[in-house]
């Protein structure tokens, strides 16, 4: 055998053996601000899985706007699991792409949402405008930065939080809620397409007096821009945003990855998974972990999307074309 042949044989063999021990690869299609969490979670899960099942697993991540990511899955991106910021995005995959079977929210505890976040107010250092609650956001002379509710889940939660605050205030009703929400949105000078872009507008361009965003995004801002540059204000009441996950049935059945994908999501509810979530300022479900991190999660009055009959009903009532948000936007444009 010539040296060359020996060499190529050795190469072929080694690549074969590489194939034989090739790890299972999972693709987790997720939304924008989950980047930091899964960076910590994935290695922890791989380690756990290898110890328990003597098998290696590699996890690939894809991030982007929540609805955009769901659309990629509908259009054929082979995700094993999806981890989104709105249940409506997973429902869309169920309805439009049929890659996920109906009833996904029953497969895990807590409606398949291993953690939650809520909308907080971020103000400039020292809170020069004295912003304390939603009502302050509607006052004249205040500039509010929020992402566009038409293109961003974060923006939709902001809108719902403001509307809910209007309902919950003393003597609140639908008309009052609309009044408050209109006042707040007429103070918006720039509508960014997504949560990260809104953060950039507020922190880097220094536009606006207050940014409304998720609690865990506030922690990202602290890591990125330094803790001394802003303050987090907890309003008297806010919206509880459940962050749901699901196995993509069609893909895992085709790839034979159902077991590992199911385990991957299951582990999110384990004490380790919950602790990583808490470290990334996502509110955990596990009571012991919640107690341990109680200090960083001030307890405030929360309402869920159930207040609006679920996200699907809220989408229809507020955000569909010609619905309340569009009407408010038109009113504001007319006034200016």
């Amino acid at each position, binding site marked *: 055998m010539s040296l060359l042949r020996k060499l190529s044989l050795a190469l072929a063999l080694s690549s074969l053996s590489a194939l034989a021990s090739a790890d299972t690869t999972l693709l987790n299609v997720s939304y924008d601000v989950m980047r930091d969490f899964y960076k910590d979670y994935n290695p922890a899960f791989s380690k756990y899985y290898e110890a328990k099942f003597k098998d290696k697993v590699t996890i690939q991540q894809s991030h982007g706007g929540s609805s955009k990511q769901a659309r990629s899955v509908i259009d054929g991106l082979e995700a094993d699991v999806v981890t989104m910021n709105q249940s409506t995005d997973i429902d869309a995959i169920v309805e439009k792409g049929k890659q996920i079977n109906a009833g996904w929210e029953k497969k895990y505890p807590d409606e398949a949402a291993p953690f939650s976040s809520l909308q907080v107010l971020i103000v400039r250092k020292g809170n020069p405008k004295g912003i304390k609650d939603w009502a302050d956001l509607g006052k004249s002379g205040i500039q509010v930065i929020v992402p566009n509710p038409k293109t961003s889940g974060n923006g939709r939660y902001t809108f719902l939080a403001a509307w809910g605050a209007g309902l919950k205030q003393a003597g609140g009703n639908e008309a009052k809620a609309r009044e408050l929400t209109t006042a707040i949105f007429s103070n918006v000078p720039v509508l960014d397409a997504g949560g990260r872009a809104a953060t950039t507008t507020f922190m880097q361009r220094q536009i606006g007096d207050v940014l409304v965003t998720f609690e865990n995004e506030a922690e990202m801002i602290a890591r990125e821009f330094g803790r001394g540059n802003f303050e987090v204000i907890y309003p008297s009441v806010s919206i509880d945003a459940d962050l749901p996950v699901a196995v993509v049935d069609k893909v895992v059945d085709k790839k034979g990855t159902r077991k590992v994908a199911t385990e991957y999501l299951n582990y999110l509810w384990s004490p380790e998974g919950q602790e990583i979530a808490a470290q990334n300022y996502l509110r955990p479900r596990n009571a012991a972990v919640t107690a341990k991190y109680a200090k960083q999660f001030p307890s405030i009055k929360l309402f869920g999307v159930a207040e609006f009959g679920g996200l699907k009903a809220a989408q229809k009532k507020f955000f569909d*074309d010609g619905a309340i948000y569009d009407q408010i936007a038109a009113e504001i444009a007319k006034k200016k």
Partner: protein
Amino acid sequence: MKFKQSSVLPGFNLSLGYSLLYLSLIVLLPLAALISKTLGLDWATFWAIVSEPRVVATYKVTFGASLIAALINLFVGLLIAWVLVRYPFPGKRFIDALVDLPFALPTAVAGIALATLYAPNGVLGEPLEKLGIKIAFTPLGIVLALTFITLPFVVRTVQPVLEDMEKELEEAASSLGATRWQIFSKVILPTIFPALLTGFTLAFARAIGEFGSVIFIAGNMPFKSEITPLMIISKLEQYDYLGATAIAVVMLAVSFALLLLINGLQWWMAKRLGRRK
């Protein structure tokens, strides 16, 4: 039919076949898919979607800003091409290469860079704000981004024509007593006009479809600084594929009509100038 004898060069059938196949695959097929998708809508729904006041406002912003940007580049582009062709100066090659930069730069990068520069706390935005001029997050920002993105089109279409122009014609005109303005309007302009118009058309068409750079600097306020491509994206975010394609078809139709109009104008000009000779 004299179809085959139109050229003495061989391979006409083959090359025409290739061209048609290529155009069909790359251009016609996606467009046909787009139009066939909108056929899922009945006329009343289609009209309701595309004539919604908020969407109509975006047409005005998109086509208006694109037109202004293309007009700015019509003049500035001609000027740059003229300088690059007619005058020798140090650093000319560098400037020449600079013109293509807006082509090469990812549009999102351009948008973010412009927004950073012209934001109220930006290097240029801050002094301008003191003068009472706001650029970033206003319709003016959209024009700025589009002007940047479409700069190369006019320069690159006019430049080769200017280079090939016979200087003798200008010298002859001059020796026959023509004024500078007469030389420009009667000798130079008619020669470069078709190229100028092509550059203008390309710039205009490119600007209409631009999304990446505009989105970062527009501010995206409803009825004020929303562009039509944003409407398409926001329909997609609601999984409203049909609504998105309906607006896309309107953009396509208007762009096609405008391109046809300008091409027709060009043809008419060429014919008129041809007869004069």
